[in-house]
């Protein structure tokens, strides 16, 4: 009886080891493309705003006011699925380098995924009237160690955030001019 138990245990341990090795290998293969592209797993790089809208089956919010110190179109469009999905548009400055990140949810007012809009340490926080309700103006330290200005607010049931290196006035003006065409 005891010998049978040992035999079963050995067989199951072997099975567990083989399956464990399989899980580790599969997980590694799953993370490899994101690692090679230098971005978190699950984040998709999209070619354009239109592709993001096709994927979301909805129009994105975009600022009607767009300062000429920034380059249009965005240098990168990042998308992560979920409930809600999150999209981040990255804009370079006219002299090069990342100047502004415009992130938004699609399909809910839940938090914007940190995989497309990394969390930042808040230095200062002030209430701000933007869109339908109260938003926030913050000074934050980004993951690059630099101080950024950030405006976050809710608009038509979606959460939006602008994080930029430009002036606070410019950022607020962009936030207040944000619109979504269509439904």
């Amino acid at each position, binding site marked *: 009886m005891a010998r*049978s138990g040992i*035999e*079963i245990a050995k*067989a*199951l341990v*072997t*099975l567990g080891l*083989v*399956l464990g090795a*399989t*899980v580790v290998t*599969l*997980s590694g*293969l*799953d993370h490899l*493309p*994101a690692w*090679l*592209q230098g971005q978190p*797993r*699950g984040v*998709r*790089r999209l070619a354009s705003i239109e592709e993001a809208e096709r994927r979301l089956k909805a129009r994105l919010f975009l600022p009607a006011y767009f300062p000429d110190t920034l380059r249009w179109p965005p240098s990168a469009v990042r998308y*992560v*699925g*979920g*409930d809600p999905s999150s999209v981040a548009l990255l804009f370079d400055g006219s002299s090069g380098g990342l100047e502004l990140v415009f992130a938004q949810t699609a399909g809910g007012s839940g938090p914007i995924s940190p995989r497309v809009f990394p969390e930042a340490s808040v230095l200062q926080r002030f209430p701000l009237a933007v869109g339908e309700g109260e938003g926030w103006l913050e000074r934050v330290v980004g993951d690059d160690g630099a101080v950024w200005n950030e405006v976050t607010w809710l608009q038509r049931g979606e959460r939006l955030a602008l994080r930029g290196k430009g002036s606070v006035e410019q950022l607020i003006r962009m936030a207040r001019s944000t619109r979504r065409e269509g439904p």
Partner: protein
Amino acid sequence: MPAARWVDFVGQEIFHTFVAALVVEALVRLWRVREPQQRLALRLMVLGYSLLVLPAYFLLFPERAGEAFRDFRALFAAARWDEMGLLGVGLYRWWVGLFAAIGLLLFLMDLLPLLWGRRGGIPPESAALSPQAQAASAVLAELSAGMGVARPRLVFLAEGGPALFCAGARNPALVISRSAVDLLDRQELRAAVAHELAHLDRLDPSVSWVLMAGRAAMFFNPAFQVVARAMARDAEWRADERAAAGTGDRLALASGLLKLYRATAGRPPVPGRRNLPLAAALAEPLARARALDIEFRCRRLMQPAPAPVPFGALRLAATAASLSVLLFFVV
């Protein structure tokens, strides 16, 4: 089903079968499964998964195709490789196309010679009641009774090179040539006939057609083709073991195998024989593979009959259940 979903299905069939086959091969070695029936059962589980379980996942769990599943629940999402491209096509699609082409090649490598060899069907029986035919008939009658196998039709070939094989799904027959009877001594002939009777008793000719139908359905799946080939080899080993048990002479079977191999290596095929040589370009590697296969079978026959590993059914069930759960999260 849209084209992207078909690509997804083909990709998952290929990848799932590949993973399942690797897991099973690792377990066969680590558990030291040498008994052919147990090896067959484990490999059949891989094919069964591919033919039944994965299509069921596609039908019953359409949410597996959704982005939410891929991003948050999947252990591995092959489509993630599509985010990297080559010549404007995602790596995932390249990968699916490449492996599907390999699968098709492996399938055709076995299908075309099979169709070519069946043009003549089973050769007609020679009416001459030569001493060799009488000897073959006597051995067949003795072994059929001794092994409890229904006596098949005997097709005796008076002409041509050494041949000894079974064929026919609906009307099974044992084909023996005069030169095979001349070549083998009585013990070797008994062992070789017992081997073919073991095939017929397990309905292996019919099973091989069912297996070929499965391979046709999975023509794009290289792992499926390789596992099916491995099962054919296991079926040979199983027939070897049954013949050795039936005649009580393992060495006679090994000796008969070697003699038949030496006498038939490089000869043109006998009509009706299933394992015909393939294309000329592949003749050399295939001849080497056949030689290795014969060598391996002889080595096995020089050792005592392998004992089944204990708790075979439990191992099989645990492997099937855990693989099904694991692969559910591979999309």
